[in-house]
């Protein structure tokens, strides 16, 4: 497939890995590898899927970050969605992965569905708004999650619902923003807080950057002295980004570089940004799994679109559920631990029987690690 196969050439991957080794070897004492965090779950997935940990020299250590959209949503929000689906006569639509994430009492949207709630998986939010249009007597709620990649599509469907004059459609908005989370990580890593390891640089998100552009990352370079290389999801892209990061660190440079110029520009997708600004307002604060409450890190619908805001249309009681204390998802999302450090990994917790969110989505650190690599029994 064009724009996929050429970026997966295994011979070239070996050579790029050799170039990384060449560049990194001897640059640091053996006990001090280059540590780079990939922020985005798509990269975590790619790293495991294409076996990059085995290809990379010991001089390079990758830290998995909080960029899995399903994983960062705290349990209270999953419980709120379950409550919506169970308490009200409505159809709750959401993306497939969300249906399997455990909430409190190990309930999930999938289990709520099995018990009779009307929960449906959609591949696109467009399907949710069409369902509402075709069933005017049925309330339809779209449980919206994700970073800047899924946010503009949600903005489009809210405007579409308004244009269609729908009275039976609303959005439970849980969209979160990448730059505040990156800043949280930069601060925590600079202070050694919350177990966040120091990192030498960041592999920047692919498609979030297609929307927001490369500029929002500049703060990492200018205020924290950390290089960022935005890159694609194919193995050659990731390896190339690592090579570019090693070169920057060795040269004592810290700038934002864009390896993914085929899809990402400095200014990003201006049309999508304008739509987001038109439909959404910043929330004062929002809770992230593993990162806690971060000010101005999430979005809600603007008052002008209040008629489509599920939080305004339905009363929800706050959830008091607690995460399974043995599940290390919060530490994994901060980059403080790796999946194998969780006692439940691959034994009690598997993709078929996930205990935590990181084992559900293929971009979650635990699922990526389990599906393509390391298992305790091996």
């Amino acid at each position, binding site marked *: 497939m064009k724009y*996929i196969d050429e970026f997966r050439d295994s011979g070239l991957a070996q050579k790029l890995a050799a170039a990384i080794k060449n560049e990194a070897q001897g640059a640091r004492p053996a006990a001090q590898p280059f540590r780079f965090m990939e922020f985005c779950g798509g990269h975590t997935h790619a790293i495991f899927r294409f076996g990059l940990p085995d290809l990379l020299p010991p001089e390079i250590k990758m830290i998995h970050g909080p960029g899995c959209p399903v994983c960062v949503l705290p349990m209270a929000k999953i419980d709120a969605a379950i409550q919506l689906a169970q308490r009200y006569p409505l159809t709750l639509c959401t993306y497939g992965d969300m249906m399997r994430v455990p909430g409190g009492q190990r309930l999930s949207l999938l289990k709520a569905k099995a018990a009779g709630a009307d929960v449906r998986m959609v591949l696109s939010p467009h399907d949710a708004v069409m369902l509402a249009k075709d069933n005017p007597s049925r309330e339809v709620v779209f449980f919206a999650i994700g970073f800047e990649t*899924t946010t503009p599509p949600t903005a489009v469907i809210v405007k579409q619902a308004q244009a269609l004059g729908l009275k039976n459609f609303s959005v439970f908005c849980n969209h979160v923003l990448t730059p505040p989370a990156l800043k949280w990580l930069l601060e925590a890593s600079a202070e050694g807080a919350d177990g966040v390891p120091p990192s030498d640089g960041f592999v920047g998100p692919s498609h979030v950057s297609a929307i927001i552009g490369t500029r929002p990352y500049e703060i990492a370079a200018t205020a924290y002295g950390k290089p960022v290389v935005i890159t694609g999801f194919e193995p050659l892209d990731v390896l190339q980004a690592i090579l570019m990061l090693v070169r920057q660190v060795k040269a004592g440079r810290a700038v934002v570089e864009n390896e993914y110029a085929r899809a990402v520009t400095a200014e990003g997708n201006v049309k999508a940004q304008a739509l987001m600004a038109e439909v959404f307002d910043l929330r004062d604060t929002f809770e992230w799994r593993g990162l806690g409450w971060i000010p101005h890190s999430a979005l809600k619908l603007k008052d002008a679109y209040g008629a489509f805001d599920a939080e305004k249309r339905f009363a929800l009681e706050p959830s008091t559920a607690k995460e399974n204390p043995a599940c290390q998802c919060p530490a994994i999302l901060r980059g403080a631990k790796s999946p194998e450090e969780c006692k439940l990994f691959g034994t009690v917790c598997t993709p078929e029987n996930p205990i935590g969110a990181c084992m559900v989505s293929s*971009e979650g650190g635990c699922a990526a690690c389990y599906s393509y690599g390391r298992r305790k029994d091996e």
Partner: protein
Amino acid sequence: MCLAIPAKITELLESDRATANVGGVNHDISLSLVENVAVGDYVIVHVGFALSKIDPEEAAKTLALFDEYHAAGARAIADKAAEGDA
């Protein structure tokens, strides 16, 4: 769920929609977030929406860069090996 993929636009449809081909399978997608997309263009599709156009020139430049690096990398490795032999 964040894994967006390159798709080729095969047909433009009404109300900002299009047919896009991903690995031989056709999908009905939205073009509401992009501008000036024509049949034959490649776009990155995620949750049924094209997020950005793929710039073929930039893609070619990146691939050319890989080739250069890998030639340079291979040379450097050969040089090192030669030093070791000497």
